[in-house]
């Protein structure tokens, strides 16, 4: 059974049509990387999957639920979402921000249980932010903040994780680590959709690649095939060379 399902999805923001006729399925354990030029509709695609914007036509299903209409708590148990931009009105500490991810699994007054703390600790360790736990979130660097929010999304305990540019502003080592962590999450049975401009990391760690161009799903396949395709060249206006190092590791370079 497909965990995430889009069929004939059109999304409009105001009067502007942003996505047209998107149909796709994602199964258990799949890691989909979404690439495409700025303004192509990648973020709108994941926001529609997260239920934050309702499609004008077509249907979206997340483990059988309609994410735009279902109860938010039910959706959040199945689906975590890391937005591109995140700002806090008040100076919460890092650990508090991460624990917000546990909201859907808490009841009553929401005192963090041992399970909540354990999930937060594991996610923070994986994202290398455990040492930041007492720091005010709004004093972190951009890259640290991204890693904290990734930890929040992971500790939500959802089967599907939607990440909108999780490596924006990250140094190379931490960016690679993010893809490693997401890959491990998928190998453990979860499903991830990762929007990224990091073509090299997408090539190496992604399972399936989607190319979004001008509101359409322009290409789908293995990352090497999609990156080397004419569709990618047309979308970005530059060709992408996919090669291999003597060690066998693949790399991608825009030419």
């Amino acid at each position, binding site marked *: 059974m497909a965990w995430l399902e889009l069929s004939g999805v059109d999304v409009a923001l105001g009067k502007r049509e942003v996505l047209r006729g998107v149909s796709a399925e994602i199964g258990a354990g799949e890691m989909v990387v979404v690439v495409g030029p700025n303004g192509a509709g990648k973020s709108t695609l994941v926001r529609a999957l*997260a*239920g*934050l914007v309702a499609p004008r036509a077509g249907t979206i299903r997340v483990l059988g639920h309609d994410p735009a209409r279902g*109860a*938010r*708590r039910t*959706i*959040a*148990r199945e*689906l*975590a*979402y890391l*937005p591109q931009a*995140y*700002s*806090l*009105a*008040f*100076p*919460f*500490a890092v*650990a*508090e*921000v*991460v*624990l*917000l*991810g546990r*909201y*859907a699994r*808490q009841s009553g*007054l*929401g*005192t963090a249980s041992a399970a909540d*703390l354990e999930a*937060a*600790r594991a996610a*923070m360790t994986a994202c290398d932010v*455990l040492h930041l*736990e*007492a720091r*005010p979130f709004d004093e972190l660097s951009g890259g640290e903040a991204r890693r904290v929010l990734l930890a*929040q999304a992971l500790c*939500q305990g959802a089967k599907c994780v939607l990440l909108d540019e999780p490596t924006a502003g990250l140094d190379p080592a931490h960016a690679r680590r993010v893809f490693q962590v997401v890959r491990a999450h998928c190998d453990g049975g979860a499903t991830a959709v990762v929007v990224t401009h990091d073509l090299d990391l997408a090539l190496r760690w992604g399972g399936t690649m989607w190319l979004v161009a001008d509101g359409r799903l322009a290409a789908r396949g293995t990352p090497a095939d999609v990156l080397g395709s004419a569709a990618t060249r047309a979308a970005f206006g530059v060709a992408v060379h996919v090669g291999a190092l003597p060690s066998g590791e693949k790399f991608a370079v825009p030419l």
Partner: protein
Amino acid sequence: MTRGFVTGGRGTRRAVVLLGCLALAAGLALLALVLGVSLDGHLELLGSDALAPDTMAHTLLWIRVPEVLGALLVGGALAGAGCALQALLRNPLAEPFTLGISSGSSLAAVIAIRLGLEGALGGIGVGGAALVGAVVTLVVVSQLGRVGRTLPPATLILAGVTISGFCSAASVLIQSTSGLAETSRMLRWMLGGLDSMRLVTVGYAAIPIGAGLLVLGAYARELDALAAGTEAAASVGVSVGRTQIVVFGVASLLVGAAIALAGPIGFIGLIVPHAVRALIGPAHRALIPASVLAGGALLVACDTLARLVVSPVLLSTGAVTAVLGAPFFVVILMKQKRRAAMWS
């Protein structure tokens, strides 16, 4: 601040501050009960004969009991509502005044005085009108500020400012066409104060205020999540629309009840959440109860100051809180400006 939250061994700071606020509220309330000024202008405490019936001191004590209890209730309600509104609107300057609730409530009270309804409903005519005014203003402001099923902070504040300006102007118009006696009663009411409070009134007000504060406390996690904005809150599982409606409604009821009891008393809902947040951080599970206690304590202190400073003349409590509050507002504004400058 929250060291060891996840790694174990949580800080005890919150518990200490919470207990401190409780002790402060209780201590100030007791002091306010027994502290007075003698006829020759000296501060003095009521002696042990305050406990003996048929003494002057005993009578004084029983005059002050409803005043002090009322101050605790009103201060707590305003501070709790301030916490909730600031979180809901993601705006540290949000307050019953910014949203027009106070002005709308005052207008209703002024109309009630003009129509001579003070004695209606067993003497709670003006207070009742103030409560109705708060709720009506809430409905109007939220309908004006609503976009779809959500209440975006910007449109809501804009609606609040507009309605507030209209209500203030209408109040002035009504005042200027009223007789001298009515005008002075209106002015007296609009200055805000807790004197001549009756125990039974305080008792009636305690029920909705207590219930409202409990509801706000139950929404602490949702308010935390909303600090990151409505989309981020929705994606961790908060039903944003319901939270906005319930919290905004309850906060307005709290403000309405507070104004009905004591007239429009400003700045408590602004100062207290800020100060408490600086001490224990923004998590609402601790912020709300601590602010309620601190708000009660601060209003008891302001009310006692109003009674003592130029005794035997009674200053208006609302004037005392405004004199303390306005500079505080400026300090927050300057901080916000620095922060905004940093980002530009």
